[in-house]
């Protein structure tokens, strides 16, 4: 097979595999010392360990095992290796680890998934140890050469220096260093001493993007490749009853029309011809009972979960909520709703597959190359080691390209009908919008009670929604995965674990699994529950006659990190200072993905409900800030993502199918609508939080609390477009 496609570092991969012998360590049991895979040398450079290769020309290759979808980890993860390695960042090249290599080497490079904002926080320790171990080996090699104690040598900027002034560069030491027994224990640098990490570094993939040279999954091109357009059952779970392809077959360029049970595919010599022919394929779908489902019937289904006496799981119970609610104080009750949402990665789902001689090659933009590999093997009916997944840059991920892997299953199923020929299956935008794994809709009942002094004494929540973990991941809802038996952790995220000092708390979960498929959508449960929690917190504060900041501050005295970011953000926003006439503020605070976030919105609302956001102050404490400029970018992007969702985002169901289809009816925010976003980056140290998702968490409640301050209208249902509110 010939491919015009440039896979980075393809040649070194081959030699690397030849040289690879044993694998040290294992992921499952304490991934402490990174795998030393080979004692290699030669023109390709010396592999000091699984993460670090040094070439004679001083180029340092740092391997990266996860995905890049704009979150910036392909830069920040190697920065941590380089920091400990004491190399020259300008000489670093990043090499992508392949899922098939990871499989072959017993997952020496650990988890490859970029999901849950955890690339940095879950790998920082072994990445830093990899760098530190390699550094110590390079120092030891120099010490051996000079016959001096290693303690008299120091490494910096890719050079080992002895106290006498003698110097040797990494490129000259690497071959010897690779032969040295790796130290069992290495000391990691105090982040205060960081020289590369903690500094705003340019992302390694941006120059190629800016020059139009970045290659995404959709850009794969191979000789003889064909293109497929697909149509899945418009009603989820439906199947093809019969198909009439006579009008499509014989059209120019059309090679095949395939009935693949749950979907049909047209394969042609370019994608446009395939898509046009697909319109002419008549399919009679067997939609079953789901053909009657509507948004209204789904709402009834979820509301029944709120009222149910049975099949309810308790996520958290502190004190006696019922007694506190009945104790005679002021009681508030409210229902909040957040809708289904589509991911809308700008690059629609796609997967290119070549099945030939029992081997399966897959080119796919994926957040989890190992899951793609497993899905391809299962669909093609081949062993895992017969599959090669070629990772591509992702045109957006947001959770769509992680757990589900439906795009791989469909791509492989199509290619199976064309063995020996590479086929690129690309979904239309309509297909992508109507066959997503949606952010679950969620209906929440809240109850709270205040004592005579206005202190909250009871907090009750019941969440009714489809469980992602039970339906997509198909895992039992049991601790430690779940907060309690039967509770989906995402469904109750940020509600069940409120850090506020409230003496009586009960949080319940009604698992109500509808036919609409759900999945992980950027920030998942924290994209919707903080809206509920922090809006209701405002309701309580105002009912108590207290300032929303003061009310929260008093309740967070035993949650110093939450309190810290709340105060830092409020201070940056000058909370409490006078505002121009007609401008109002709202505030919120939430922990998400190990980071602490807060938001203050300043806005005005016209008589016609047009909201103008004058200023959005977003605070985040991620513990450590590895690439600060990238964190600022993630926060800015989070603002756009969440404002898009809260103003317009809504997937509705009619006759069992999704009503929205493309950007004309599933609206995205545009440049002119982007408000002024000020980021308060306040890393307080001592923990590692994520940055890709947390930024969204506090935005919706801060904006809605400000809308309440401006109008007296409490928003309990999103999106705002359905509440008579629009964006200026």
């Amino acid at each position: 097979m010939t491919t015009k496609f440039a896979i980075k570092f393809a040649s070194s991969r081959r030699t690397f595999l030849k040289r690879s012998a044993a694998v040290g360590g294992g992921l499952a049991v304490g991934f402490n010392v990174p795998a030393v895979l080979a004692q290699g040398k030669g023109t390709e450079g010396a592999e000091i360990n699984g993460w670090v290769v040094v070439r004679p020309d001083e180029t340092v290759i740092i391997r990266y095992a996860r995905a890049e979808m704009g979150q910036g980890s392909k830069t920040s993860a190697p920065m941590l290796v380089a920091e400990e390695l004491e190399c020259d960042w300008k000489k670093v090249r990043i090499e992508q680890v392949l899922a098939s290599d990871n499989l072959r080497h017993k997952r020496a490079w650990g988890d490859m998934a970029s999901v849950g904002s955890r690339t940095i926080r879950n790998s920082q320790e072994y990445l830093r140890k990899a760098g530190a171990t390699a550094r110590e080996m390079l120092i030891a090699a120099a010490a051996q050469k000079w016959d001096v104690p290693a303690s008299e040598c120091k490494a910096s900027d890719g050079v080992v220096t002895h106290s006498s002034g003698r110097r040797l560069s990494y490129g000259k030491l690497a071959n010897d260093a690779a032969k040295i027994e790796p130290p069992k224990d290495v000391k990691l640098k105090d982040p205060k001493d960081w020289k590369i990490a903690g500094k705003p570094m340019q992302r390694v993939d941006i120059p190629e993007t800016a020059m139009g040279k970045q290659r995404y999954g959709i850009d794969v091109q191979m000789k003889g490749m064909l293109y497929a357009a697909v149509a899945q059952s418009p009603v989820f779970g439906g199947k093809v009853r019969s198909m009439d392809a006579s009008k499509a077959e014989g059209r120019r360029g059309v090679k095949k029309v395939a009935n693949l049970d749950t979907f049909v595919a047209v394969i042609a010599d370019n994608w446009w011809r395939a898509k046009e022919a697909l319109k002419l394929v008549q399919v009679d779908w067997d939609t079953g009972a789901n053909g009657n489902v509507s948004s209204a019937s789904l709402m009834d289904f979820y509301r029944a979960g709120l009222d149910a006496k049975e099949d309810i799981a308790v996520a958290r119970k502190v004190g006696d909520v019922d007694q506190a609610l009945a104790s005679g104080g002021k009681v508030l009750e409210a229902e909040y709703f957040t809708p289904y949402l589509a991911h809308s990665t700008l690059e629609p789902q796609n997967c290119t597959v070549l099945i030939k001689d029992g081997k399966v090659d897959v080119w796919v933009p994926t957040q989890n190359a190992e899951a793609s590999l497993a899905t391809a093997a299962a669909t093609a009916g081949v062993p895992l080691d017969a599959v090669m997944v070629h990772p591509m840059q992702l045109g957006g991920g947001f959770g769509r390209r992680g757990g589900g892997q439906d795009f791989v299953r469909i791509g492989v199923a199509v290619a199976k009908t064309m063995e020996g020929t590479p086929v690129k299956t690309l979904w239309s935008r309509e297909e992508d919008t109507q066959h997503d794994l949606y952010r679950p809709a969620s209906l929440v009942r809240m109850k709270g009670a205040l004592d005579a002094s206005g202190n909250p004494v009871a907090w009750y929540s019941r969440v009714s929604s489809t469980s992602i973990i039970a339906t997509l991941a198909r895992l039992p809802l049991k601790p430690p995965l779940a907060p309690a038996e039967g509770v989906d952790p995402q469904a109750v995220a940020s509600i069940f674990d409120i850090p506020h000092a409230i003496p009586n708390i009960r949080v319940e979960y009604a698992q109500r699994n509808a036919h609409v498929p759900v999945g992980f959508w950027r920030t998942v449960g924290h994209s919707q529950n903080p809206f509920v929690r922090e809006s209701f917190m405002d309701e309580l504060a105002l009912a108590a006659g207290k300032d929303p900041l003061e009310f929260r501050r008093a309740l967070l005295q035993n949650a110093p990190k939450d309190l810290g970011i709340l105060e830092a953000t409020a201070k940056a926003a000058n909370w409490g200072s006078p505002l121009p006439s007609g401008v109002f503020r709202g505030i919120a605070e939430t922990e998400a993905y190990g980071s602490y976030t807060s938001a203050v919105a300043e806005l005005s609302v016209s008589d016609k409900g047009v909201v103008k956001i004058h200023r959005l102050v977003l605070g985040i404490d991620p513990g450590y800030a590895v690439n600060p400029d990238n964190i600022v970018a993630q926060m800015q992007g989070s603002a756009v993502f969440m404002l898009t969702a809260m103003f317009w985002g809504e997937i509705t169901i009619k006759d069992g199918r999704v009503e929205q289809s493309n950007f004309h009816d599933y609206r995205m925010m545009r440049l002119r609508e982007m408000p002024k976003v000020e980021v308060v980056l306040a890393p307080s140290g001592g923990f590692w939080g994520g940055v890709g998702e947390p930024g969204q968490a506090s935005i919706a409640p801060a904006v809605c609390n400000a809308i309440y301050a401006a109008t007296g209208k409490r928003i309990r249902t999103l999106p705002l477009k359905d509440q008579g509110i629009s964006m200026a």
Partner: protein
Amino acid sequence: MIKLTVNGKPRSADVEPEMPLLWVLRDVLDVKGPKFGCGIAQCGACTVHVNGEPVRSCSFPVSAAAGKRITTIEGLSQNGKPHPVQAAWIEHQVPQCGYCQGGQMMAAAALLKKNPNPSDKDIDDAMTNICRCGTYARMREAIHTAAKAGRGAKKPAKA
């Protein structure tokens, strides 16, 4: 056979006249910079210049481009030197996933060609492409930077 000039080179394609320019570029001529995002001229990821004018190539029949000069993001730079917009995009670290950015930069370059000193309002009106990652604030800054660089570069040339 439809003849076009793509990034300065004569190209031809034996395709239906109604086939959108985007798919001729991507699937027939292997020019992958213009991206498919929506197919209905909503997102602008497919933006290219036809005789210097920005068009959304997913909804632009190839027959309308016959005999015309097509410039894609691959052809925006001259002699391997980044266009001021591309240089500013790197300086401001604009892209996140980057998928829309070729189209965004083509829209920005077209704006600056017409209006070398755009106001924020001009930028609002011209930059209507979708960026799902939300890089808008940096795009705006980068356009101002590119405008400055463009004006700076032109001054000595005129003098």
